[in-house]
């Protein structure tokens, strides 16, 4: 990263840390949502951008992670700091199963994407009928006081959640940056570019693809746990739905698959513009369901057609931030 980029990143970091002091609760909630999608998009990016496997069912990990931690809390009173480990373990196992099935049986490309969709849909309907975790009626976590920070139970004012997701996103950025420059990063890019050539250079592509899938699902599990304790209600129809999976991937695709800052930029742009449209319509007294998603669709269409590498690489070059 050159000096200009480092400086800009530093300024952005400071701005984000200071945000809660200036923002009202609405702005804070929007910022939290942006960071949530930035974090989840970054997690998805590990599977797609790094290892080249298109997952269209990532809502599976958000949901499983959320329900795992929420279920522990709901039924046994076990707090989030222990619950998150179960969530990660279960999601890594699920990801490993999907990865194993896909890679051992040589399923890739479109077929792999369909497989991930099928698993997510299967789980969605399954959870709809899982009464122990609330079924289609939903799982509700008790919310105690919202004013004091109770870190042990992950309860507190909105600013606490904001800092939590900010920390997670920063952590994800650091992790991905480190991974990209490491042996794993080189190997994943090689596999993505040409798997046969990668094998001829001593890369056990099965093992490395599995690693990408497991890291991606582990990170997404954490996103799910955050979701559970932030929103405090879980519905299979919402959390496992395919439109959630698509929301997750919009940020990275628009920002730039495989890049570090792409997912974050994409998530920010999309959420801000979408919110802007909703506000604009509300100013005219209109509330039309579906407008936001049509907007997402149009942006996605334009980006896929004219900026296939995403917006970030173009911006980075223009601003002189790339090396």
């Amino acid at each position, binding site marked *: 990263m050159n000096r200009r980029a480092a400086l800009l990143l530093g300024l952005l970091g400071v701005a984000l840390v200071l945000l809660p002091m200036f923002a009202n609760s609405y702005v804070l909630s929007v910022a939290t949502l942006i960071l949530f999608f930035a974090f989840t998009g970054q997690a998805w990016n590990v599977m797609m951008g790094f290892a080249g496997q298109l997952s269209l069912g990532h809502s599976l990990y958000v949901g499983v992670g959320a329900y795992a931690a929420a279920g522990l809390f709901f039924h046994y009173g076990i707090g989030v700091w222990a619950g998150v480990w179960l969530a990660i373990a279960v999601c890594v196992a699920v990801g490993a199963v999907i990865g194993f099935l896909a890679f051992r049986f040589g399923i890739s490309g479109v077929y792999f994407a369909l497989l991930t969709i099928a698993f997510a849909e299967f789980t969605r309907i399954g959870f709809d009928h899982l009464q122990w975790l609330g079924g289609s009626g939903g799982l509700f976590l008790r919310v105690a006081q919202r004013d004091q920070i109770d870190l042990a139970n992950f309860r507190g004012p909105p600013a606490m959640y904001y800092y939590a997701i900010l920390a997670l996103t920063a952590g994800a950025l650091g992790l991905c940056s480190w991974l990209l*420059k*490491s*042996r794993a990063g*080189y*190997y994943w*890019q*090689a596999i*993505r*570019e*040409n798997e*046969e*050539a*990668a*094998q*001829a*250079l*001593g*890369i*056990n*592509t099965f093992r490395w693809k599995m690693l990408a899938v497991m890291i991606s699902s582990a990170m997404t599990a954490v996103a799910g746990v955050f979701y559970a304790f932030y929103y405090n209600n879980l519905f299979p129809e919402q959390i496992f739905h395919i439109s959630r999976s698509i929301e997750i991937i919009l940020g990275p695709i628009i920002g730039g698959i495989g890049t570090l800052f792409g997912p974050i930029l994409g998530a920010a742009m999309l959420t801000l513009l979408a919110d802007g449209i909703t506000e604009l319509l509300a100013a005219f007294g209109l509330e039309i369901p579906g407008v936001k998603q049509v907007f997402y669709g149009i942006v996605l269409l334009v980006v896929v057609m004219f900026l296939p590498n995403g917006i970030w690489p173009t911006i980075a070059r223009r601003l002189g931030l790339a090396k």
Partner: protein
Amino acid sequence: MTALLEVSGASKSFRGLKAVQNASFEVARGAIVGLIGPNGAGKTTLFNLIAGVLAPDAGSIRFDGAPIAGLRADQVCAAGIGRTFQIVKPFAGLSVLDNVVVGALARSKNVSAARAHATSVLEKLGLAHKRDMPASSLTLPDRKRLEVARALATRPSLLLLDEVMAGLRPTECDQMVAVFRELNRAEGLTILLIEHVMRAVMALAGQIVVLHHGEIIARGLPSEVVRDAAVLECYLGEEAEI
């Protein structure tokens, strides 16, 4: 001293088509062996059997005394065999240096050591000045050099070259030949090459093996093989009585 590579009775069929039949030959340590034959003779299939892309239906392949038939391609690379592809497969989105670093990481566990080794390999192949260019922007001769550099970065004891001279002009071909000669002389690199460009084969190979319809029909010194009647027949056809 046992040969570095021993292929005995290797056979491979595809749905009834016998691509390789009962092939047996050896490559001595430090030798350069040429594998020639008309198109469709089974040369690349034989390479793929050695390199672990395919498993032989029958026969054995031993490398440095250990059996390697049926191992995966990445395991074969770890054992010390590097290979290039007939149709080059660069990592188009990566830089020239990063392409070779991927290869170097097979032996060097940390990235900086790999980069250093990759740079020295690029220098040997004359590509060092293009290290930061994207691989997709290279010309064909440079792509071939990159392919070789990548395989060399894995520090192989045996290098399998699949028609690496195809499409090169005579001067470019001579340059490549010089590089291989030097690697063979200075580092004792053993080379098995598939080639149609006889200029290169005659300049490099100490021994030639001829494949035709999946079977080995001749082997020996270059000067003997090119005069062998069976070899001439498979390339030029039978002599007609007019």
